């Protein structure tokens, strides 16, 4: 069920993305693979699986992005696994794929402000320490890029800037 902004303190920030529609999405947090195929994991995969929101009308919305740069929203939704939530954000119905960009989430029926979808950064910093840009400080990312180069082809480097 889509809900109009009124009554839900909807405050999603438009990004000017093609096909975006600000809205508050209401429904139950489900693990995509579990919901679609019956291959389930404890706690919806505990942040290691793509999650979505199942609306009351049966429509499944994949939540593909959170507020942290270069990061998704699975860590924000996993804590609500199997529970009803309200998510404030942008539904992007691109012909190639429909994704929901969750900017904030809260328990259904709550009058509390939406909690910004920033748990990826919290969890990353708990593992790695604070960094101004997590993506440049990420050990796994740096290991991959050190191996293949920033262009993905070993030995191929960008031209020096003039």
């Amino acid at each position: 069920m889509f809900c109009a902004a009124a009554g839900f303190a909807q405050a999603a920030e438009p990004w000017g993305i093609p096909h975006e529609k600000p809205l508050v999405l209401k429904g139950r947090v489900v693990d995509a693979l579990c919901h679609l195929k019956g291959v389930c994991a404890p706690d919806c995969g505990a942040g290691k699986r793509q999650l979505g929101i199942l609306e009351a009308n049966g429509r499944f919305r994949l939540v593909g992005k959170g507020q942290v740069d270069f990061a998704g929203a699975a860590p924000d939704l996993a804590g609500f696994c199997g529970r009803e939530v309200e998510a404030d954000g942008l539904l992007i119905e691109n012909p190639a794929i429909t994704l929901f960009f969750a900017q904030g989430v809260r328990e259904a029926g709550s009058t509390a402000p939406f909690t910004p979808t920033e748990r990826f950064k919290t969890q990353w910093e708990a593992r790695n320490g604070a960094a101004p840009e997590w993506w440049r400080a990420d050990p796994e990312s740096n290991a991959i890029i050190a191996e293949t180069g920033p262009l993905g082809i070993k030995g191929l480097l960008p031209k020096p800037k003039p």
Partner: protein
Amino acid sequence: MTALSQWLGRPSARALRRLAAAASLLGAALTGPALAQDGRRVSVTGEIADSWCTISGLMFAKGTAHHQCAVWCALGGIPVAIRDAEGALYLILRIGDDTDSAANPRIARIATHEVTVNGELLERDGVKHLLVDQIADDKGVINLTHDEHGIQPFGN
């Protein structure tokens, strides 16, 4: 002795297994699979692509120019897809037995590669969900876009 075992008295291992199975079923009932479905067998060829960058229009999101960004996004848990020649995105939910579809280093390592995969396609509410059984071919990164587009999105 745990509260559970106190409650049960001295539960047998079998009783505990049954209890665990019941808890698992209860969890599945809450989190799905309400509409578990059979998909259709497909073979998909295209570039391992970051779904967000592809549809957001915030940057050029193809090939070598976008490789580094695609690695970051894959490790950040943004859904990874295969973009075919027509521009359709096939969202990867598993590869073989590996069902980690968010922030999976194995998937990040094939970011931007041109691949052909075999698997099961489940289309639902605007998303082509792909359950990959096998990566039949991996040509590596072959789409050379960096000369024209630099390194996305920051230039370094």
